[in-house]
Structures are given as C-alpha cells and as structure tokens.
C-alpha cells in the first residue's frame, strides 16, 4: 500500500431481498494496476463490479474514487456521473446497441462531451474521431462489419465490439466482466496483450474464469467467495491456497500444467 489507491471499497455489503450477495468486501486498486478478480460462480464478483459502476447500491460500506480533484463517494452518484468520472464497464453478457451499426456503437462510446447540446450540434465525425474509430475497428477485427447492425454479430464478435467501445471510452478505471468468455485460445491471448497495452494508461479490473489467461497476465489476484474476500495476492500465492483450490480451482489440476 505504498501508492495511494485510485479506488477503494470498504466493507461493502449488497443484499437482494435479504440475500447477501456481497458481505463486507474490501478492495483497493492502485493506479495503473491490472487486477484480476476471481472466485466461484455466484461469489459476488459481478455484483462487486455493479457496485463500483453504480448499477447496484450497497446497503452499507463505502466506495471511494480518488480522482485528481479529490475523493468522491461513488455510492452517492448516478451511473452516468460515475461513468463520466472515468469508470467504464464491460458486462458479462455482451451488451451492445443492436440497432446501431458497429461504427455507430463505437462513435457513441467514444470519449466526448455527452451533453444534449453537444450531441445536437454534432452531425459528422471529426477527422481525428474517424481515425480513432478506424484504428479501433482494425484492432478488434471488425473492419469488414463496420456498417453492419451490431445485433447481427456473433456472440464473440459482440464481445470484441464491447471491448472496443470500452477502449474508446477511455476510462481511468476499466471493469471487464469475463472479457474472453467464448473466445478462442488465440483470441484470448490477443486480448491479454491488449490488456497489457491498456493498463499502461489506466487501471483495469478483470473478472475471469480462464485460469490460463489469469496466470499469463495477472500480477495481483483477488479471490472472492460467498460475497467475502477469500484471498488476495499473486497468482502463485492464490494457487497454493487450499481453500481457493477447494472452492474454486478444483482438486486435481495442477494449474502450472495449464497452457
């Protein structure tokens, strides 16, 4: 805990009709960190991301975003304000705008003035914006589909599109919920490389179940179980933990053998 954290969650508890999905969870992120959040299905990972991006309000606990201008209590902000602060989110099931073209999806996601007036006055994309989108399109491999309605993309292509949108949004903190689900191994690798690229400029939290992926790219891993923090540390430390093995990784497999 040398550097001041950019985001800190303290004792966050979330309940749905009495069911506690997250209980007293702590999480602190350093600027420029690539953090992996793992844990069994239903551990509360997605819910935790929901809290950070404002989708779910915790019943108790504090979530503080340490911006340059000062600390901000996230739990009191509306979603779009949180997004404006610089917290971006990719959802577990791909959620893109099905009726818009691939290109339009990216255009909207692109960092910009998001007020009504500004939008009313913008008719055509500026040259710089065009170029950014073109670059993004080739990065996510959807150049040929740029004019296609996004609803017609395959599952994996939608994933890519959403990642592309997140990158154009240029958030300070990027929350990725299972970004490589449904991708081929090679694509997974490519995504990982992309992540390392991104993390130079921002902080990233990734929720994943693909251990090979986690292993290859993670420096620090947080393990959740039943809404609580189970273990935090390097991948090696986590792997060696018996409880993690028991509830999450599985008994037999030697994780080192993966890949």
């Amino acid at each position, binding site marked *: 805990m040398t550097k001041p954290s950019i985001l800190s969650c303290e004792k966050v508890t979330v309940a749905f009709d009495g069911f506690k999905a997250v209980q007293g969870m702590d999480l602190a992120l350093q600027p420029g960190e690539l953090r992996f959040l793992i844990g069994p299905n239903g551990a509360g990972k997605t819910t935790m991301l929901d809290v950070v991006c404002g989708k779910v309000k915790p019943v108790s606990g504090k979530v503080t975003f340490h911006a340059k201008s000062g600390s901000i209590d996230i739990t009191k902000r509306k979603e779009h304000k949180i997004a404006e602060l610089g917290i971006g*989110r990719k959802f577990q099931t791909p959620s893109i705008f099905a009726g818009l073209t691939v290109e339009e999806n990216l255009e909207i996601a692109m960092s910009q003035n998001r007020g*009504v007036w500004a*939008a009313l006055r913008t008719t055509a994309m500026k040259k710089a914006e065009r170029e950014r989108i073109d670059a993004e399109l080739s990065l996510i491999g959807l150049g040929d589909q740029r004019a296609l309605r996004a609803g017609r993309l395959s599952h994996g292509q939608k994933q890519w599109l959403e990642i592309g949108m997140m990158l154009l949004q240029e958030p300070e903190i990027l929350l990725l919920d299972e970004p490589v689900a449904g991708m081929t191994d090679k694509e997974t690798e490519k995504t990982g490389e992309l992540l390392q690229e991104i993390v130079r400029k921002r902080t990233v939290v990734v929720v994943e179940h693909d251990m090979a992926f986690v292993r290859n790219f993670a420096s620090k891993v947080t393990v959740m179980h039943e809404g609580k923090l189970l273990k935090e540390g390097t991948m090696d430390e986590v792997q060696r933990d018996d409880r993690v093995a028991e509830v999450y990784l599985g008994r037999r497999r030697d994780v080192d053998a993966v890949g």
Partner: protein
Amino acid sequence: MMLQALTAPRTRKLWLLLGYAAAAAALFSAPLYLSDFRLNLLAKFLAFAIVALGLDLIWGYTGILSLGHGVFFGLGAYAMGMHLKLAAAGGRLPDFMDWSGVTKLPWFWAPFESFGVAVLLGILIPAALALFLGFFTFRNRIRGVYFTILTQALVIITVTLFIGQQAYTGGTNGLTGFTKLFGQGLKTDGMKTGLYLATVIVLIGAFVLCRYLVKSRFGKVLRAIRDGENRVRFLGFDPAMYQMAAFAISAALAGIAGMLFVLHVGIISPSMMAIVPSIEMILWVAIGGRGALVGAVIGAVALNYAKSSLSESYPEIWTFFLGGLFIVATVFLPGGIVGLAKQIGPLFRRKEAVHDQALNPVLRESNRSV
C-alpha cells in the same frame, strides 16, 4: 472500385433528393389540381403528418411509446383556437363564456389575443408540459408500458379537466365558430390556399429539422437509448436528458400540428385529445414505418386518406375494411409502407418471424422496449 464506392451512395442520394423535390413540387402545386374539399383534406392530413414526425422521433427512434400525444396536439390546437375565438368575438367575450356566466375575460385567455403570442404558446405549452412530465418520469426511469400508461393518464386528466371547465374551455363542444385570421376572413380562397401552403412549408421545415436531429449524434444516442437505456448510462450519457429533449421536441411538433389543424378544420374539442385520437396517431407511424421519417409522413397521409375514402365509399361498413387494413398491414408489412420497399417476399418470410432478426432489427428492437 474506389470510384464505384464513391458514386454509389452519391447517386442514391441524388435520387432521394430528386424524390423529395418531386414530392415538394407536387404538394406546392396541389391547389392547382385539387378541389377545394380535397385540398382542405390534404391540408389536414399534412398537419397530421407533422404530429407523426414528432411521434416517430420519440417512438421510432427513442423507443418511447406515448399514447398521450393527443394532449400536446390539443394544447397547440386550443392555443390557436383561443386566438381565433377572440378574433371572432371582436373584443367582446367569446359566446360560450357569455352563456356560462363569465363576465370578464379570464387572465389566461388575454395573451392569446396576439397571434404571435398564441403561436409561441402553442409551441411552448406542449413542450413545457412534456418537459415537466419527462423531468419526473424519465429521471425516475419510468419505462416501457409504465410510461405509456402514464401518458394515458395524462390524457384522461387533461380531457376531464377541459370538459369540466366549460366556462373557460367551451366544454365538450370545444371552440368553434372562427371567422378571422389577421383580420382577414378565414374562408376566403386566398386564405385557404395560403394556409395550405403554410402547412406544406411547416411540414417541410419539421421534416428537415427531424432529419437533422436523427442524423446528428443526438439521434444516434436516441437510438442507443432505444436499444439499451442502461448501457447508455454506463457510457456516461444521461438518458433522461435526451429523452426529455426528444419528448419536448415531439410535443412541440404536435402542438404546431394542432394549430394548423384548427386553422383547417375550424374546431377543437376535448375529444380530439382523447385516447382514441392519441392511439390513431401511433397507428399512422406504425403503418408508415417507424424509425423512418418519410414513413411517418406517408403513414399519416395514406392512412387518413384511406380512412376518408373508405368511409366515403362504404359509409356503413368501412370500419371492416379499416380494421382489416390494420391487420393485414401488421402481418404482411411489419416494416410499414416504407419497409415494404425493403422486402420483396414478405409472405414467405413471416413464417420464421421469431428467429428472423435480420429482417428488420430496428423493428424488433423498438418492439422490445415495451
């Protein structure tokens, strides 16, 4: 290759432009070839087309179904009606007030003495009401049918109040008996042609405005809201602001249409703000093809034309045909009249409607939002 890519969209644009120009020319020259009666009808339909444009903006593009646009239409119409009534009264009290025991012109009637103020209020009052309603509902994230029902409640509240305040609104009879505009007789040939042409110009203006809106980034955000309101939120936009803006613009257009309607038809009464007219407005857009501005215009004109001519030809059973038309249109023209152009073998395709996302994603998506 390069050249082709450049020219293809361009020629299409050229054709489109040509089409618009031809349509505009046909409209402007209508007084030359249409009878008095038909011209009056067309003028009314064109006024309806303006409401349809606004509805398309809020429904087709933003995915918000308002069954309350009759109110906005009516408020605009009443604004103009009040002006005309005062003009007809020529400085005295409007006749219905007189009979209702009102002795002095109510304060809120006074501003409508001026044509300019009346027009302004005819636009601003609907827009302000829409903003007011939108401010609460959109910020509270009232969506889908819940919003739709809320607009129906708005209709019922407004209509009941207008009926109840007979001394100030003319009650169920509404406002009629208009005679003059700008001191000129309303029924002179020159005035009628002038009003018709004014309607054409306003319609074109509204069309250009809406086109600009949907092509701008604002329009893209609206469509994004239609597809996934929350997702838009997490991108940093405040959907409520966009929805409010779209709703208010849409209401203002309805108000404008209402003003023109009164000038052509000579009556506004609460029944024109009620549930049925409000639903009919939606039907125009649906038949024309939502999510396409031309569709809204075509739908409003075509459907009203069909209604008029069907009821002229079969006065006793025309609702059979009109109802049948709706049924056939939804089953066989899911994209509306405009969608018809885009699909050739609809008969065969309907069978796989459930899986057929490719057919018309806009349609499916906007459908989903209710």
